[in-house]
């Protein structure tokens, strides 16, 4: 199995950790780390998974232009069911349009059918959670952008914190094996059931790295979130 990680050197908000953990999870997979000045591996090869995580908007704009010559190849792979994961503000550059309040529109690759609005004067940061297969998935949301257009292809319903945009509880955008997640928060590291599910999907051993510690952190967080009223006791 080949997993291509795009532009990890730009990742912020601790999300380098998410990829590092993924690398420990898929210990028998081959990880290709494509740097900004390199031609992506996917241009001449077919990886099984491509992943890209949040970065400063300044870098995001550069990355969009860097990927533009390879857009058709990326679409081709997405149509061929290659797994594609994008998190948080990377969604800014993947939709059809990026409106930036008070500025000119941003450049987007137009790969997926949704649009984004970025507002530098309205930053938000919040904890979110949902349930997948009866297990809590704990994450956070922060940024300047809201996304619109996932009504028919959302991935989950958030129980708190909002989804694709702050007025909707419908989170994520799915097309074939592409999963665009507006949330973040070292999701693989802090959500053991979800990570096990991912390993299982690819036929890997579902034993997690530091499994006991990950579960302790996960369970403690749930009890703390309940104690502080973030998770309602009844749920």
């Amino acid at each position, binding site marked *: 199995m080949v997993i291509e990680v795009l532009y990890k050197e730009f990742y912020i908000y*601790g*999300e380098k*950790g998410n990829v590092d953990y993924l690398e420990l999870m898929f210990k028998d997979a081959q990880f290709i780390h494509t740097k900004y*000045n390199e031609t992506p591996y996917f241009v001449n090869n077919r990886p099984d998974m491509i992943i890209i995580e949040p970065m400063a*908007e*300044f870098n995001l704009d550069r990355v969009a232009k860097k990927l533009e010559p390879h857009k058709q190849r990326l679409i081709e792979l997405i149509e061929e069911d290659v797994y594609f994961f994008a998190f948080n503000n990377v969604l800014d550059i993947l939709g059809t349009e990026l409106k930036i309040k008070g500025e000119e529109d941003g450049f987007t690759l137009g790969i997926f059918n949704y649009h984004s609005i970025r507002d530098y004067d309205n930053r938000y*940061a919040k904890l979110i959670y949902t349930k997948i297969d009866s297990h809590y998935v704990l994450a956070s949301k*922060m940024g300047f952008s809201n996304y619109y257009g996932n009504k028919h292809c959302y991935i989950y319903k958030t129980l708190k914190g909002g989804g694709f945009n702050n007025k909707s509880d419908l989170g994520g955008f799915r097309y074939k094996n592409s999963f665009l997640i507006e949330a973040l928060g070292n999701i693989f590291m802090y959500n053991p059931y979800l990570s096990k599910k991912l390993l299982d999907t690819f036929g890997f051993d579902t034993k997690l790295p*530091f499994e006991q510690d990950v579960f*302790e952190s996960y369970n403690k967080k749930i009890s703390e979130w309940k104690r502080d009223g973030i998770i309602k006791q009844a749920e």
Partner: protein
Amino acid sequence: MGFKTKAAIFLAKTSKILMKLLNKRATQLPGKIAHKVDSNILRNMKKPLNTIAVTGTNGKTTTVNMIADIIDHLDNTYISNRLGSNTYHGLVSAILDGTTLTGRVNVDYAIYEVDELWSTNVLSQLEPKTFSITNLFQDSFERNANIYYVLERIKKGITKDVKLILNATDSISSFIDVPNEKVYFSVDNIFGEDEVKNSIVQDLVYCPNCEEEIVWDFQRYHHIGNYHCEKCGFTKPKAKYSAYGIDEEKNSIMLMEDEETVFLPIIQRSIETVYNQVCAYATLRENGFDSDQIIVAMKLLKIIDTRFETVEVNSKKIIRMVAKGYNPVANSRVLDFIGKSENKKTIIYLFDNIESNGSVDARTTGWNYSIDYDLLRDNFDKFIFKSRTAEDFIVPMLMRGIDKNKIVIAKEMSDIIKNIDIQTEEDIYILHDIEPVNVLQAKEVMKFIQDYVRG
């Protein structure tokens, strides 16, 4: 000055006097009152003729205090928000200190610490002659997003006549893209520091001109140091004020100023303090102060550091230090400092400010992974957490190679003691967040350990 502004000043000044009589800190409330009465109070009130503004992620409070103390030693009158209230209301409150009940200004200088994000809104209203940026780093992700966003916010606040005083070794803030006059300061590797490469947080990888990978000649940490681009020649700007060495005999920092060496007293042997000193010196020089006079006054400076405290009890040295919560760079720097010490040591990490930071919703975890725990160099005996969110730190620590057997989660204060061997000669570091409630908690833990060690 209109009636509304006069009324605002009168009411706010009166509240300030009352608060002082009641022994309360008047760093915010008078500013809030004035703002309530006159929504444009900062723009409308009169300000001192000589205004200095300082911003940056780290060191701005210390730098402002140094500048203010030197100006004070040189017999000038001044106002300053030196306690760190650096947003709108804190600034208004500070100006009120130098304003009469009728709105007249009665001081020579104003020295302001300005919050990086607030720079956009307040800088033009403060009308500074110089604006110094100590450095910029990733800070709270929730509030500050990323370094380029902060840089843009600062840029928007800069007016055309202000002279910028910039840190040449900060490869990002030194290239702020505005046409203003710029003067640079820098600090070379004067203490023989080891380079810190491979930090998780690294904001400059590629040349901003040609996108070639940057080559580091000396990487102090993160994006700070000496660097160049092999393709286009992009490099650190030439500094007018450059600390280039130490004169041990004179116990001084050798500073090159326009081809001449001046000797600044060493106040503390830490690179951060030297940065603050050099920035303060450069700022004062650019505001017309005489070099010899600055140095004389600098010798009188005492850093009252609420962020650092040491006591020795029997075989233990107990050190209390701030490790600012949600700020991975600040935490990495603290761990680097501790990791460099060869002494035996135990580290106690207090992080219980969930309620005090005002929002449980801001309890994100990304910063835990962005701390360079490996800078501890495996050079400690125990890392004891006393925190409701202790478990969040464990996996990131393990991933950076920390031995799990050395990590302890203390549920109660007594659990801390259980992990301290009373006979062992060692340093005990107590790390805590920045809010007064955190300082209080850390002091309690410090006293608890002292009492235990004394028996």
